[in-house]
């Protein structure tokens, strides 16, 4: 330990630290209360949940058992709904990646005629609030005969996720030096080889970021899911959670348990890919 670290802190330093704590502690409480409240319900037996205690007298995993075994009317399709959420989120992630990578490569590297116009159209879509498109999208899916079909939600979410995905990928690929492409073409690479062997490996971090973004967007979506899907075995988890509100006597502790289970995978994905998310997405989200 260095000598400077062993000395007593000065009064001024203590004051600064105290002021920082005065900000930090309220921020921590504000951030955690809704999540902790949910967690508390999830581990409390039904009679304890409403007692207003900070920690239950008899914490239990019984609620999780009920959810996993689908032992309640509201939960009879839990696993089907969990599966729907997984299938739809993964499909949206993969499809968005395919469509956006191809488009970004065409616009940024191949300089396809009209590429700039397409980029602007995509940006326009990105800025239109998704809730405004929901009702026309609902009718459109109806006229395509896709309502109550997973494809309706997958295609709608791909539509919403693609513009930002293309924009992020285009920004990233504009930064790759042109000389790379020229060198590869000199060596006789075809366009497809250029895409596969040069472009994709260099773009990997942005691709991870964009894929994660689309996946999480689809997993978290409520409005479109609740408009486009309605059968109990076809809906996704957030819609099922919303349906708990239909009854006044709905079992809160089970709703909070299901909500907790539903919130875990995206949080895990987010923290796993955080460095890509922060580097690849947020920096590009707002260019000053």
């Amino acid at each position: 330990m260095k000598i400077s670290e062993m000395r007593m802190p000065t009064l001024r330093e203590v004051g600064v630290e105290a002021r920082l704590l005065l900000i930090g502690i309220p921020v921590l409480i504000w951030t955690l209360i809704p999540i902790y409240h949910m967690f508390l319900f999830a581990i409390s037996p039904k009679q304890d949940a409403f007692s207003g205690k900070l920690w239950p007298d008899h914490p239990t995993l019984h609620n999780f058992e009920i959810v996993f075994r689908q032992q309640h009317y509201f939960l009879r399709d839990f696993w089907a709904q969990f599966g729907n959420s997984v299938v739809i989120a993964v499909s949206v992630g993969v499809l968005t990646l395919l469509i956006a990578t191809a488009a970004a490569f065409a616009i940024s590297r191949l300089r396809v005629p009209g590429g700039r116009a397409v980029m602007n159209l995509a940006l326009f879509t990105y800025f239109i609030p998704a809730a405004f498109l929901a009702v026309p999208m609902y009718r459109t899916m109806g006229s395509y005969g896709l309502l109550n079909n997973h494809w309706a939600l997958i295609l709608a979410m791909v539509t919403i996720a693609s513009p930002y995905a293309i924009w992020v990928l285009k920004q990233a690929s504009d930064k790759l030096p042109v000389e790379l492409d020229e060198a590869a073409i000199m060596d006789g690479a075809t366009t497809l080889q250029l895409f596969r062997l040069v472009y994709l490996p260099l773009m990997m971090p942005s691709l991870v970021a964009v894929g994660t973004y689309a996946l999480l967007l689809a997993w978290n979506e409520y409005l479109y899911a609740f408009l486009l899907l309605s059968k109990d075995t076809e809906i996704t988890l957030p819609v099922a959670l919303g349906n708990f509100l239909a009854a006044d006597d709905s079992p809160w502790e089970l709703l909070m348990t299901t909500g907790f289970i539903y919130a875990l995978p995206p949080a895990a994905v987010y923290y796993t890919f955080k460095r890509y998310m922060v580097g690849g997405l947020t920096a590009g989200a707002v260019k000053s």
Partner: protein
Amino acid sequence: MTSIAISHADDAVPVKPRGPRLTTPQVWGLVLIAPYLLVFLAFVVYPIGYGLWLARHPASYVALYNDPIFARAAVNTLIFLVIGINIKMLIALFLSGFFAQSRGWIKWLSVLFILPWAVPSIPTILSVRFMFNPEWGVVNHLIFKLTGEDGPNWLNDPAIALTMAIGMHIWKSLPFWTLILMTGRMAIPQDQFEAAEVDGANVWQKFRFVTWPSMRTLYLTCTLLSMIWTLGDFNSVYLLTGGGPADLTHVLATLGIRYLRLDQLDMSMASIVCALPLVLPLVYFMMKRLSR
């Protein structure tokens, strides 16, 4: 196959400086951009056209004008945007300075602070809804324990309910904007602060003359972008208040769904068309900024 056909054409036709001919990479470019264009035509152009067509009757707008719930929703949306967003961005600006401090415990706090953004909004909104349930919620339970009196009927009072919806929105999106503003703050060269320190600047002066000038544009962009996104914030209102009590806390994002449920499709679309004069200038401004 296409590329072979094109290169034959290249051989046959003498080179012209300009013309409609495409090079092989450009043909590939068109092939690769086609999937997105198909998605765009089928799921953006068609729905928007269809929506505008549904909203073509002047009678729908007269009906909207006469619907007090529409006027209320428009006012609520403005309160949400003008007051809610500005409070949120000011807090984010303040906290970005807090989280930029290099201390171990602040690093850990910032990991937890991002949680509201990392978890889906539905379970946490429902959690808050239960916390504030007047009969069984933990908030009124505590109020009763401490004061012996019944707490307010939170979500049944339109003013409190709207405030809570705004609070919910701030809770969810504050971490994201704090993070963005923090990135902007970190990009300011440290020697500028050192120079200000040498000149004897205090904390406020350092913010006023060093931090703010470099962050002004970013802050404005963030505020406008947040306004656009907040216009589409359906969840914070719909799942917390359901638009109630008595349809008094609707915003434009939830009003469209309300009309859809009442089977008034034309009103639903017309209410969105009415928001366009507010949305399109913001969109235009953002596009100009981002498409450079």
